[in-house]
């Protein structure tokens, strides 16, 4: 009985669910994948950030580092590099670029290469933060003078 109910349930919701996926603005398309420019599929041949590790003392401390990034694509287009959701730099009608910047990070951070105005990530790299004192120190979690 239970099995029959579950089976019927699946039967009744399967078709509307599939239709919803295809016709919904948030649905997927089999055509979706890497974006194309003039029917040429974009291939990111290089997306490199150096360094990929930032070292600071304590969890929560700011980690400052100078990064150098290089990217190269197979075709010309408008490319942008983002730090998480923050735009770092855009290049117009370019197939390669490089950029240097001093950053202050507080957590592991993702950098991505996208087409301008497009959310699809073409390539990405993560900068990881390592801590020298994480095993020996902790941040105070209460006010020191709560006694007053």
């Amino acid at each position: 009985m239970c099995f029959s109910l579950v089976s019927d349930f699946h039967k009744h919701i399967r078709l509307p669910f599939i239709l919803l996926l295809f016709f919904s603005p948030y649905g997927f398309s089999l055509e979706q994948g890497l974006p194309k420019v003039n029917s040429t599929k974009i291939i990111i041949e290089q997306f490199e950030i150096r360094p990929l590790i930032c070292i600071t003392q304590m969890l929560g401390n700011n980690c400052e580092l100078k990064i150098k990034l290089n990217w190269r694509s197979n075709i010309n287009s408008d490319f942008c590099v983002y730090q998480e959701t923050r735009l770092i730099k855009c290049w117009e009608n370019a197939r390669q670029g490089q950029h240097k910047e001093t950053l202050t990070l507080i957590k592991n951070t993702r950098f991505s290469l996208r087409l301008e105005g497009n959310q699809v990530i073409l390539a990405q790299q993560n900068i990881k933060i390592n801590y020298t004192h994480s095993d020996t120190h902790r941040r105070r979690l209460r006010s020191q003078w709560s006694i007053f």
Partner: protein
Amino acid sequence: MAKVLLLIITFTFGICYSVYADNEVNDTENLKIDQFNISLSFGIGQRDQFVVGQDDLKLYLAPSISYYGAHLFFDNGTLGYTFKEEAQWAFSVITELNPYAKYFNHNHISNSFLEFSEAVPSPDYEGVLDSASGDQVITPSDNEYLILTKKVTTELMRKKRISLDGGIQLNYFLGANQRIDFSLLHDVSDLHNGYRFDLNWNMGFQFALFGQQPWRAKLGLGLDYLDANSANYYFGFSDENLETSYIEPYYPGHIMIPAITLNLNRKLTKHLSLMLYIKHQNLNAKISKSPVITSDQINTSFIGLTYVF
């Protein structure tokens, strides 16, 4: 008091300041794991009393005791366990004695820490209580009425007990120098069954003044919310336990208490530092109208030397 505080803040911000350098461990905010941190401050300070029948508390000694393990911590009366700590936030469960109880009950652990401090009787109140009797017939005239009112309220305030609160705490770190703390606690001792939540923002900075050694400062803005059960228990008044009834019962309902704190610290030697602490809490009309409350603010200040053991 508020003007003095404003002056100090303006003065400190007027000086060219900088946040703590990232490459140095701030030893009051970053503590060694599995080690007791004990310090003793000695100097002079005062907590202005705002409760009927009580007097200003002179402060001469203020100890600070904390211990942080990998997860467990104890910090000046608060016991906690941190379940998760990330770069930008930490989530803990905590338990502590209700901090507002310390204003009403001298057995509070904070007052035990400050046991060498001294309550100074106010001149207009000293010696009056002993002459008044709780069961005397009152002709509600002038001074006698005032005396008995004070006696009744004082007796009732002595019956305010300390609740043990337990709950959750979320710390959100905005870099190494700013932090927002949020805690939600409930009376787990079944005394008043109230809730309270505390929201605090703290910012640390440092500046140079009178020499090379930097002054470290910490500015805090806070907002405490007490639900009706908590607020009515500590700030309310009911003389139902007394046979005489001269004062109308009063229940403030839920209340909010904003606060501003400033802590200045300057290292003199490896173990010794100069410190100044100022705290101002504002009591709104719902609280100050209570017959057991005599002021619309709570001011605490302390200046002295801190010795770190």
